[in-house]
C-alpha cells in the first residue's frame, strides 16, 4: 500500500531524512521508532503529502503523492503530531466537517460520523467545543477524524502521546484491530508499544534507517538476547564462566553467550552444568533481549555508548 523509495528531505544544509526506502502492506502495523529529531515526523509529512520530498518517491495505493496528491490523500487517514484540531468547533461539528471534506454526504456522512464516535468513545463529549476537552479527548477526536472515511492507510504521529495508561491501552488495541485490514504506520518513542501493537518496526536515526524487522528480530539484536539467568544454590561464577561471560546479579548469575551461533544451545549447556555439579535450581530463564537496549545501542553516537 505504501511504497517509499530513496526518500530525501533537506532543510537547508541539513538532511532531515536521508535516503530512506521501505514498504508497508495491508495487514501490517509498522512502528516508526527513533529519538527526537530523527526524521519521523518529516517522513510522515511526506507520506501524507504535506511536504514535498527533496528527492525520491512516495506512492500510496499506487498513486504517486507528488503527482496525484488528491487520489493518494483520499486513501490516507492522518493523525498529525499534537493532534491539532479546530478549538472553536464542537466534536460533532469537527467530525462532520472532516467527513464532508472526505466527500461524504447525507446518510453516508451520518453513518461515518457515528462509526468514528463509537470507535473512539466520544459519545459523552459530542456537543462540547474542542478547546474545553481534556488532552485525551482532544487526541481521540483527532483520531476519529483520521478514521472517519475508513481509510486503507493510516498514518499516526505519536498516537499515544499525552494519554493516560488506560487510554494508551485502548489506542494500542484499536491500532492492532484496525491493522488487520489496513496498512498502518505510527511513530512512537515508547518501546513497549512496539510489542503491544506492531507487526514490524523501523528504527530511524539522523534521517537513516538503522534497523528494520519484526519486534522479535529487533530484540534478538540485543546483547542480552539468548543470555541465561540462573539462580541456583551452590553455583559459582568460576564454574559458569566456561560457558560464557558471567555477570553477577543479586543472588543470581547471568551468562551471556560467547557468540550469536552458540546462543541457541546456551540454555541446554547451563542445564548440563547444573546437573553435573548437582546445584539446586531456584530459578532459571532465558532472556529474549530488550528493545530498550537495542534502541539505545543503535541510536546513541559511539562516544556515549556504555
Amino acid at each position: 500500500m505504501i511504497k517509499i523509495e530513496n526518500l530525501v528531505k533537506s532543510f537547508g544544509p541539513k538532511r532531515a531524512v536521508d535516503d530512506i526506502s521501505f514498504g508497508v502492506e495491508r495487514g501490517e502495523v509498522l512502528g516508526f521508532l527513533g529519538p527526537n529529531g530523527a526524521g519521523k515526523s518529516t517522513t510522515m509529512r511526506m507520506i501524507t503529502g504535506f511536504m514535498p520530498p527533496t528527492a525520491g518517491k512516495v506512492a500510496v495505493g499506487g498513486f504517486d503523492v507528488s503527482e496525484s496528491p488528491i487520489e493518494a490523500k483520499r486513501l490516507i487517514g492522518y493523525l498529525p503530531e499534537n493532534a491539532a484540531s479546530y478549538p472553536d468547533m464542537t466534536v460533532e461539528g469537527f467530525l462532520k466537517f472532516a467527513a464532508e471534506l472526505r466527500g461524504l454526504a447525507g446518510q453516508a456522512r451520518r453513518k461515518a460520523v457515528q462509526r468514528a464516535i463509537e470507535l473512539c468513545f466520544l459519545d459523552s463529549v459530542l456537543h462540547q467545543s474542542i478547546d474545553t476537552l481534556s488532552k485525551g479527548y482532544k487526541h481521540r477526536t483527532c483520531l476519529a477524524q483520521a478514521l472517519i472515511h475508513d481509510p486503507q492507510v493510516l498514518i499516526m504521529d505519536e498516537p499515544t502521546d499525552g494519554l493516560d495508561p488506560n487510554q494508551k491501552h485502548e489506542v494500542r488495541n484499536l491500532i492492532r484491530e484496525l491493522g488487520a485490514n489496513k496498512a498502518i504506520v505510527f511513530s512512537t518513542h515508547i518501546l513497549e508499544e512496539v510489542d503491544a501493537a506492531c507487526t514490524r518496526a523501523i528504527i530511524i536515526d539522523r534521517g537513516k534507517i538503522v534497523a528494520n524487522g519484526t519486534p522479535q528480530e529487533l530484540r534478538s539484536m540485543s546483547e542480552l538476547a539468548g543470555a541465561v539467568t540462573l539462580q541456583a544454590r551452590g553455583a559459582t561464577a568460576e564454574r559458569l564462566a566456561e560457558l560464557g561471560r558471567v555477570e553477577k546479579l543479586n543472588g543470581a548469575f547471568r551468562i551471556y553467550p560467547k557468540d550469536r551461533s552458540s546462543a541457541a544451545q546456551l540454555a541446554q549447556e547451563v542445564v548440563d552444568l547444573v546437573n553435573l555439579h548437582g546445584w539446586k535450581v531456584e530459578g532459571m530463564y532465558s532472556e529474549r533481549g530488550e528493545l530498550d537496549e537495542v534502541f539505545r545501542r543503535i541510536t546513541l553516537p559511539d562516544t556515549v555508548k556504555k
Partner: protein
Amino acid sequence: MRIIWTITKRELVAYFTSPVAYVFLVIFLLLTGFFTFTAGSFFERGEASLASFFGWHPWLYLVLVPAVGMRVWAEERRSGTMELLLTMPVTTWQAIVAKFLASWIFLAVALALTFPAVITVNVLGEPDNGIIFAGYLGSFLLAGAYLAIACMTSAMTRNQVVAFILSVVICLFFILAGFNPVTDLLTRWASPAVVDTVAAFSVVTHFDGFQRGVIDTRDLVFFLSLIGYALFATGVIIRGHRAG
C-alpha cells in the same frame, strides 16, 4: 466547488461563534457612523449623497480589514491545523480561495449592515441610488483587495501581530501612491507620466470612479487582479513553507 464551500462554511461558522465577529461588527459600524456623520460632516454638505460615507473607506479598511485577515493563515500555522487541512483531499488553491471567500463574505455582511446610511439619505433627499450602488460595489472590491493582502501576510508568519502590521504597511502603500499630498510631492521632481504610473497603483485612484458612480472595467480589472495576485502569492508562500 463543494470542497471550497465546505471550508468556507466552516470558517464563517467559526467567525460567528467567536466574539471577534461581533466586536468587529460593532466597531466597524460605530466608526463608519462617526466618520460619515461627524468627521465627514454629512449634514453640513447639504447634498443627498453618501460621499462622506465612502470617502473614508480606504482609511477605515486600512486598520479593520487586516484585523480580519491576520488570523486566516497565521492561526492555522500556529495551531498546526494547517497540516490537518492540507493533508485532506484538498488542493492548496481550494483552501486559499475558500478561506479568502469566508472572510470576504464576512466583510460583505459588515458592509451590508451599514444600510441605515442608505435609508437616511433616501429619507432626507433624493440621492442617485445608482451612485450609491456603485459605491458599495467599489467598497466591497476595496475590502477584498485589502483582505487578499492580509491573507498573504498572514501566510508569511505564525504571529498575527506581525501579519497585521505587515498588511497595514502594504495597504498603506496602495493608498499613499494615489493620495493627493503624495502625488503633489512627486510632481515636483518626477515627470507626469511617472506620477500617473505610481498613482495607477493606488486603490484610491481606482476607488474614486466607483464613488462617482462610474463602474469602469479598468477599475474592476485592477481590484480583481490585485486580489488574484495576492492570493497567488499566498499560494507560493504556503508552498514555500511546506517545501521547507
